[in-house]
């Protein structure tokens, strides 16, 4: 009998406590963010979409090896010896003519392993995340440009000792987009 009573009393007491809590939450502010109108800004490090600055790419293929899902494809061949020397933004000379640099974002697993080994930091992840498309083909990004304006003067030599990005921690350049 007593066990029946304590069961009954516990049942009522805990139900009332529970109801008090849900009642209290009726008056606290809701946390929903109504997406298309209210929008939250992603922190700068968030890894959303890959972008590659074609002018700085020296075609080394480090990112192709680092990618665990093999979704970066490069085709580059040697620049003819007599062509004008060109440099990347941070002063490394570009010896290869990158014919094709494609990233298949539909395969990419957004792990950001490819941006670290890149010597000229031309490949980095931007915070742009609303690139859903109806056709998978539109996720296949082709970064190779035919009309690229390469730097014909060595920026390192011209501006004296340009502080090259510290080799250790890969500070990601702030994204223009």
């Amino acid at each position: 009998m007593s066990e029946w009573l304590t069961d009954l009393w516990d049942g009522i007491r805990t139900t009332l406590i529970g109801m008090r809590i849900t009642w209290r939450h009726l008056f606290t502010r809701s946390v929903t963010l109504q997406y298309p109108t209210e929008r939250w800004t992603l922190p700068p490090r968030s890894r959303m979409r890959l972008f590659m600055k074609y002018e700085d790419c020296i075609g080394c293929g480090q990112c192709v090896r680092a990618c665990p899902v093999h979704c970066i494809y490069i085709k580059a061949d040697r620049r003819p010896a007599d062509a004008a020397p060109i440099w990347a933004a941070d002063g490394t000379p570009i010896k290869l003519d990158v014919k094709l640099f494609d990233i298949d974002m539909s395969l990419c697993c957004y792990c950001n392993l490819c941006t670290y080994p890149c010597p000229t930091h031309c490949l980095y992840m931007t915070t742009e995340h609303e690139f859903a498309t109806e056709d998978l083909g539109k996720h296949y990004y082709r970064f190779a440009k035919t009309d690229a304006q390469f730097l014909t003067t060595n920026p390192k030599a011209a501006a004296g000792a340009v502080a090259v990005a510290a080799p250790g921690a890969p500070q990601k350049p702030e994204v223009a987009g």
Partner: protein
Amino acid sequence: MASPTQATGGFGWQIEDLDTDEMILNMGPQHPSTHGVLRLELRTDGEVVKAARPHIGYLHRCFEKHAENVDYPGVIPYTDRLDYVASMGNSLGYALAVEKLMGIEVAPYVQTIRVLMAELQRIASHAVAIGTYGMDMGAFTPFLHLLRDREKILDLFEWTSGARLLYNYNWIGGVSYDLPDGFARACRDFLDEFERITHPELMDLLIGNKIFVKRTAEIGVLPIEVGIAYDLTGPNLRGSGASYDLRKDEPYCGYETYDFQVCSGQGRYGPVGSCFERNWVRALEMAESVKIVRQALDRIEKMEHTPVQEKCPKRVKPPKGEVYFRTEAPRGQLGFYVVADGAGVNPYRVRVKSPCFTAMGVFHVLAKGMLIADVVALIGSLDIVLGEIDR
């Protein structure tokens, strides 16, 4: 409750004559409460489950075959996708295994960051575990309250590592990014609000609730010997009273320097080892993790900040050999058995012993004689994630 078939027949017939024929009920791959893609083949007589046979493999993504075709750092994004609810723990386990193989000792600052991140991930993972368990019982509100607070942890993770669920944060020999400045203050705000409001509310609203207690406190009782024999680990074993926790007994990453209690089931509302106890241990562990994170934050402020990728080798090529390293993931002991042949860049063999795999192994033992509603409670209390079971 004597099951109907044992009742005596009277009138001289045997009880078998009254036996109703059994029904095979498929709690199929798409079922709202199987925590993922799991098929349970239940032989039921009315509501009572006579025999249960789990079928897994629906989410098998050949992790171990992938691990043989990718280089050592490339495996980390794959380990994140094992137990996708607590992916910080998986990559930490794999990274420590390879570091032990290569003999790398990471700087104390990085170790503290790893402990901080692992414990935050434990709070987030237990929040999902307890929340979905409440939802299986029908209480929908605690689940959303816990998810609301889990979002705050995910914001912290996104702020540091860049991703909200699959972080690829723990690397072999270090972490991918240093903590952003202002992280400590935001983390402390979260901890204060969690300890002051969310945790007590969860205790009152769900765990203290009499209906929840009645639904879970007498079923699925798992004695310790059966737990050890079937290799249950983590909260599933500690719910049965064992106080074995890898963070205390085989400390890694400097866990021995933090003071926290190992919580185990005390049998408050029913026999020790019942479904309630396992869930109760998870609730207590969330509070313990908050303490650890606080200590880690205090240490980080006093410690000198060494660069986080100092010990990251340019090319990870461990010497020939093999190692089996266990870490205390939120769901139990997550073991990585890494075999290196010393020649190639890719690991020769990576075997993951996932805690949910063995937890599911004991399911058919506990499920006999249960009602269907209890089968759902049992799955919820074992807190399984199918990504880790099927690998």
